[in-house]
């Protein structure tokens, strides 16, 4: 009974919803609530990226570019153009246009192309000062919804938490659908998938656009939560951070992505006790985890407990 429940992709969503609902009661201060909200925001981006890397098997080193577009859309849109923050979703169209040619590339070539794409976005944010405030960044106008001013850790914890649950639910749906099956086939072998009649280019594009939209929504949330956006949101290191979160937690596991995000948001907070040794500790954790659980934390734990379908 337990086993069957755990193996259902929707179990994760249910558990996640319960954790998100209960967590604020256990947190001693607003500081922790802030951290929890950050975890939800990053986890949202990683759940999307996991669809692309973990299921379709396409590595992107430039997803911070989409994250940055989301973040800047909610800042630039209302400030300069007078359009509402929902503009952030335009990233879907951008990803569609960019994804078509880029996804023809395979393996490391795709990695370097996405890397270049992310850098191009980041450079535009840093250099077009008239629009984006340049390297110093720009303030993000507070969003008002029916006269309700959206600000503060409480508000954003609930917005990000609920969105994360919805995001995980959508991901579970995609994974359980024929699309998810096609993506897994592409992951195993593009040629074999093609022979089976799967439109490889189309499904890769679906995963790419979906993951870009997840990243953009997360980026928009982060910008509105912080009230400030700087070009670092779209930087190369942020892209690497997303991939690291997905891999540490476990590729191909939605829960893994969330655990990975939680780990990488919490670690720097915990490691501040080491002061200067923070980076050494972070690097060591990454290496050691990857050596001992190369499949990632959640899948390895699941197979250890015998919960994993063989």
């Amino acid at each position, binding site marked *: 009974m337990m086993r069957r429940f755990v193996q259902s992709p929707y179990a994760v969503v249910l558990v996640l919803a319960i954790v998100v609902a209960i967590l604020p009661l256990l947190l001693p201060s607003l500081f922790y609530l802030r951290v929890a909200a950050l975890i939800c925001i990053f986890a949202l981006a990683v759940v999307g990226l996991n669809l692309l*890397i973990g299921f379709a098997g396409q*590595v992107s080193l430039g997803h911070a570019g989409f994250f940055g577009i989301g973040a800047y859309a909610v800042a630039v849109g209302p400030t300069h153009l007078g359009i509402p923050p929902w503009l952030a979703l335009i990233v879907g169209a951008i990803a569609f246009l960019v994804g078509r*040619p*880029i996804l*023809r*590339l*395979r*393996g*490391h*070539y795709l*990695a*370097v*192309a996405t*890397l*270049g*794409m992310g*850098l*191009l976005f980041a*450079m535009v944010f*840093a*250099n077009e000062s008239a629009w984006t405030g340049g390297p110093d960044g720009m303030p993000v106008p507070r969003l008002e919804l029916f006269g309700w001013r959206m600000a503060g850790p409480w508000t954003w914890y609930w917005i990000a938490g609920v969105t994360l649950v919805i995001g995980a639910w959508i991901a579970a749906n995609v994974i359980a659908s024929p699309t998810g099956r096609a993506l897994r086939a592409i992951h195993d*072998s*593009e*040629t*074999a998938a093609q*022979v089976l009649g799967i439109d490889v280019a189309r499904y890769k594009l679906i995963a790419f656009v979906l993951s870009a939209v997840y990243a953009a929504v997360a980026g928009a949330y982060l910008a509105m939560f912080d009230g400030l956006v700087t070009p670092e949101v779209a930087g*190369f*290191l942020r892209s*690497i951070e997303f*991939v*690291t979160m997905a*891999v*540490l937690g476990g*590729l191909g596991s939605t829960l893994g992505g969330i655990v990975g995000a939680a780990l990488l948001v919490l670690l720097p907070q915990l490691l501040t006790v080491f002061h*200067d*040794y*923070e*980076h*050494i*500790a*972070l*690097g*060591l*954790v*990454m*290496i050691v985890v*990857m*050596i001992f659980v*190369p499949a990632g934390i959640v899948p390895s734990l699941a197979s250890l407990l015998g919960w994993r379908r063989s």
Partner: protein
Amino acid sequence: MPEFLQFAFSGLTVGAIYALVALGFTLIYNASGVINFAQGEFVMLGGMVTVFAHAAGLPLPLAALTALVTAVVIGLALYRLAIEPARGASPVTLIIITIGASILLRGATSIVFDKNFHSLPPYAGRDPWIVGGAALLPQSLIVLGGAAGIVAALWYFLTRTLTGKAVLATAANRLAARLVGINTNAVVGLSFAVSAAIGAIGGILMTPITFTSYDSGTLLALKGFAAAMLGGMGNPLGAVVGGLMVGLLEAFSAGYISSSYKDAVAFLVILGVLFLMPQGLFGRSGVERV
């Protein structure tokens, strides 16, 4: 015309360093299939250790040798302690390990040394020569000469020595290489050591021109990786051509278009090349086995 030459000189100098980083990527990739994102840290270590060994009173050649040995030891340690234990892991997992290693090395360097920028005195005079109206620093020639020397030595090693041929054999087919009695583990270790040495030499050569600091490796790794992919992953000639191209593209677009978008032009060209030639300039198209 003098302008053009000036940009070409600076582009070739930076490009030579990118080429060395790309060569390091290529060697390790060929031997082990690992994309080593810690490659830039070897360049950083080459520069930083030389600076501090020199400041501690060692004569420059000895300081450079210390840096070289340090980088090689760290390269071997990276292989033995982080890559070898994770053998059989997926490529993404291995990439995360090398990224972890590069964060660790950066952190360690900032503690052992410091977080400031450092430079070295030029190895052969400060006065530039005027060539066709453009200034050419003696140090630029040293960088170019050093890079050319490394490429030549590497070519000789790979094609004219038995050990070098073992490296090529391992790159071509690991299992077949094992069957004919090649110790492929030793070959992979060797390629990490050689890559570290090449990176460190690059760092030693370029520090008088470009400054170095604990975090200067990241950008170099990025450019070197892009250069290696532009040339075609796994092809040493492609790595060198790719590196020089990225350097020249940067210099010319910084000079003629806009210095804040110099990287943008380089990456736009890389994207363009990859769209037309998905395997890079010199890469062979692989056949996927199902």
